[in-house]
């Protein structure tokens, strides 16, 4: 084989492997999309062609499933978590990034470490405490536990973004007469805005997909979408078309959010180091 | 050791033509410098010789072999990269030894001896156990050199090897390179945008612009006999004065009707006159070819660079460092009528009179 055709062969082989890998990654997602539009009968056959129907979506939002309630819960919990976590984390990250403090490394490592603690360890005391103070099955309770997951991650990630902002602009503003707080408000916040939005979206995705805490703490009133999936395990077996429709409602908004922040994806993930 | 031959090589990325049907014959043992501004295609040309870039068309020959289909490892050339390309996880010794180890061209037992020899040539022996990150810029540069000279390749390829060094070190390393290339006598292609490097190191210089070599010649030819406006403008510091105007009766007249100097050509309706700063002399007002006002006078230490306003034109000339001028002062300019060049502004090419 000549060098040129050998090169061509390798190029084609690589493309084929990539396409197969992508197929393995994407086909399950597509499969779920398809199942969500299949009728109850079609879903139990390996059919590619079928008559699409929206009835599954109507069913999951209707009684007894009432997925709408879960959607509202998920949205409120995730939004509130982000709304608390990002401002608090931003202030801390700025300080970690720009000042040297006593015990700074210890604090940062501690924050990082809490990230890696298995959720089952911290959920037990929360369960007991919530039971005593009546926070079980409330959205407030869920926001509190979600903060445990999201905060350390947000601090590390935002710190990374602020580290990347050159300090000159801030120094120029201070020479021009700004106080430190004015600098944060007028210089750092606008410059870090893309990073803050990225971090916010990451935290939102994490809170939205959170499972274990919601499983243990919620019961009826404050059930979130991932837990809502369990509703479709019926006596006669899983209701796959409904599960798929619910699945789409869970993942579609996250797909959109993930695509918005795709440019900062890797950077953010390695800095936050969490899922 | 070998001759390198490029036959009509072209490199295109989409619509962008980096190198345009360039042919070049580099003689055995020659030190050839490719000189040009960034983006002119000089590095791409070198990378095609190394095999790091595949030509879109044309042939590359090293020795008596067409190497288009050969991988870089099979071309037997050594390369020094702009950022050195040192292996950060290996000691200096292992960096230098790597090409020998991987090629198995010499018995393993001889490797230490050869590495030491190469290290000695570039004065690196005390640093052999260090990692690249523990070295200064100049030392890293030497490691890259040692890695190239540790074996005897067909040719050396050097891609702006001195550009990351500070000015002083660059001068020192330049001399060392010159010495080394004299000792080793191996065909070398050297890419740079620094004309002094080109002038001092080269046997021949190829001045490149927009994907083509605009003039190929000895440093002397390039400096004293530029073939076109681009080369005339690119070589020399301060760069050559290029004055627009026309020629009437062997006399050059600027666009705002100043008569400057006699020329070899009799008549040109449109012309660009090229004069080097050192070929214009400042004399008392009224006693030269033309008068002008001092716009700026810069003392560089070794001489004074004078910028003169002449109607709408500015002309630079170099004067003796002891002469002082004040801004706005009127002075006379005397041109050396044997040392000027005429160019055709429409093609940019040099215009030579038949007898010249």
């Amino acid at each position, binding site marked *: 084989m000549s060098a040129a055709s050998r090169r061509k062969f390798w190029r084609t082989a690589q493309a084929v492997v*990539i396409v197969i*890998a*992508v197929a393995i*990654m994407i086909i*399950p997602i597509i*499969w779920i999309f398809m*199942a969500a539009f299949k009728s109850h009968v079609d879903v139990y*056959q*390996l059919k590619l062609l079928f008559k699409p129907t929206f009835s599954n979506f109507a069913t999951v939002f209707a009684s007894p499933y009432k997925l709408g309630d879960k959607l509202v819960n998920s949205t409120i919990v995730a939004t509130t978590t982000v709304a*608390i976590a990002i401002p608090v*984390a931003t*202030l*801390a990250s700025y300080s970690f990034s720009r000042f040297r*403090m006593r015990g700074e490394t210890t*604090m940062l*490592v*501690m*924050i*990082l*470490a809490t990230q*890696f603690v298995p*959720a*089952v*360890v*911290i959920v*037990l*005391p929360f*369960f*007991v405490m919530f039971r005593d103070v009546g926070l079980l099955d409330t959205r407030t309770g869920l926001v509190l*536990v979600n*903060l*445990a997951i999201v*905060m*350390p991650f947000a601090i590390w990630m935002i710190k990374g973004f602020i580290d990347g902002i050159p300090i000159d602009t801030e120094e120029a503003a201070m020479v021009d007469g700004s106080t430190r707080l004015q600098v944060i408000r007028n210089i750092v916040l606008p410059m870090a805005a893309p990073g803050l939005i990225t971090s916010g979206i990451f935290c939102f995705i994490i809170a939205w*997909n959170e*499972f*274990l805490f919601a499983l243990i703490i919620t019961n009826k009133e404050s059930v979130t979408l*991932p837990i809502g999936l369990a509703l479709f395990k019926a006596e006669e077996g899983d209701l*796959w078309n409904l599960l798929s429709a619910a*699945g789409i409602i*869970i*993942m579609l908004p*996250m797909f959109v959010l*993930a695509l918005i922040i795709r440019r900062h994806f*890797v*950077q953010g993930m390695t800095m936050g180091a969490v899922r | 050791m070998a001759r390198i031959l490029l036959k009509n090589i072209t490199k295109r990325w989409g619509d962008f033509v980096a190198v345009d049907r360039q042919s070049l014959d580099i003689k055995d043992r020659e030190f050839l410098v490719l000189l040009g501004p960034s983006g002119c295609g000089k590095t791409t040309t070198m990378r095609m010789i*190394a*095999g790091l870039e595949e030509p879109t068309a044309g042939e590359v020959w090293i020795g008596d072999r067409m190497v288009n289909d050969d*991988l870089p*490892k099979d071309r037997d050339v050594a*390369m020094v*990269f702009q950022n050195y*390309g040192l*292996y950060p*996880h290996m000691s200096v010794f292992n960096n230098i030894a*790597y*090409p020998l180890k991987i*090629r198995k061209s010499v018995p393993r037992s001889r490797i230490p001896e050869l590495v030491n020899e190469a290290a000695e040539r570039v004065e690196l022996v005390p640093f052999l156990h260090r990692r690249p990150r523990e070295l200064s810029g100049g030392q890293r540069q030497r490691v890259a050199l040692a*890695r190239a000279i540790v074996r005897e390749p067909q040719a050396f*390829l050097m891609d702006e090897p001195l550009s990351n060094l500070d000015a002083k070190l660059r001068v020192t390393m330049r001399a060392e390179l010159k010495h080394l290339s004299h000792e080793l006598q191996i065909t070398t292609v050297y890419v740079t945008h620094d004309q002094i490097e080109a002038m001092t190191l080269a046997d021949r210089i190829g001045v490149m612009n927009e994907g083509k070599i605009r003039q190929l010649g000895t440093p002397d030819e390039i400096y004293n006999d530029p073939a076109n406006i681009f080369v005339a403008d690119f070589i020399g510091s301060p760069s050559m004065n290029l004055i627009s105007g026309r020629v009437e009766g062997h006399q050059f007249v600027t666009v705002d009707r100043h008569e400057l100097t006699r020329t070899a050509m009799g008549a040109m309706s449109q012309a660009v006159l090229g004069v080097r700063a050192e070929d214009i002399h400042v004399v008392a007002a009224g006693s030269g070819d033309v008068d002008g006002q001092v716009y700026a006078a810069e003392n560089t230490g070794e001489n004074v660079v004078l910028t003169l306003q002449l109607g709408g034109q500015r002309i630079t000339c170099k004067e003796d460092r002891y002469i002082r001028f004040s801004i706005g002062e009127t002075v006379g300019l005397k041109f050396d009528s044997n040392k000027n060049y005429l160019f055709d502004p429409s093609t940019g090419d040099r215009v030579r009179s038949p007898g010249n």
Partner: protein
Amino acid sequence: MRDNTLKYLLVLPAILVVFATAVWPLIQSFRFSLFQGRLTRPGFPQGFLGFENYVWALTEEPAFWNSVAVTAVYTVLTVGLTVALALGLALLLVPGGRFRMSVQTLLILPFAMSPALIGVSFRFMFNPEFGLFDAFFGLVIPPLADISWLSDPVLAFAVCVMADVWGWIPFLTLVLIGGLAAIPRDTIEAAQVDGASGWQVFRDVTIPQLLPVLAVVIILKSIFSLKTFDQIYMLTNGGPGTATQTLSHYVYFNGLKYGQLGYSAAVAWLMVIPMIFLTYAYAKLVFRRTQQ
């Protein structure tokens, strides 16, 4: 206000939140682990036991050791497979170009899927009657046709591993692409000119320079494999029997299903021990990288 005061004020709210939501429960759960703590009985926690809960788990409970084994094998397999496959995919995708860039964008999608949903999907895919993967495997390896995957201990475990690997490959691939792209191109080209073949360049130049990123990726993945819960819960719920019961699932089951909170807390704390080592290693790597 002086910076010296301000800098502590700025971190204070964050430290309080982290303390209240993570550190305090951690300490609290350690306290539980020293007591007899039955949720179902009044006066929780009941009697002080010292380390008896720990001793009990380590000496008297085969179910605990079963989930240790499940978690260990699960971790080794998922870390090994995910990292190896992600590295391969990253190498294929790193050259860039429009095709490869759009593939990289697609890889972000599986990341946004919740692990619970991944669990559900895989249960769907491996349904013996109408699962897509089941049909595919049946086609390629006929003995596997129409097998009830999730009722067989070994196959169920395999499906759990596959789901995990499937969910993690895209993210690790993207991280490794980042790592590969950060390797100076001229070191690779220098090796090519020096005479190294494709494989030699990979072995001598690429891998050594990727090692720090690779280490981060391996530690990170190990941490998350060790605490896997969501997928397993939705996919097999630990079954059949306890064939896929990871430690997290074991803690959940004992603590909240059976109400043995003290005992569960002890097991949970046993899980924390390997985490401490991994976190220490991770922190060291991260700090070294940020300082460079």
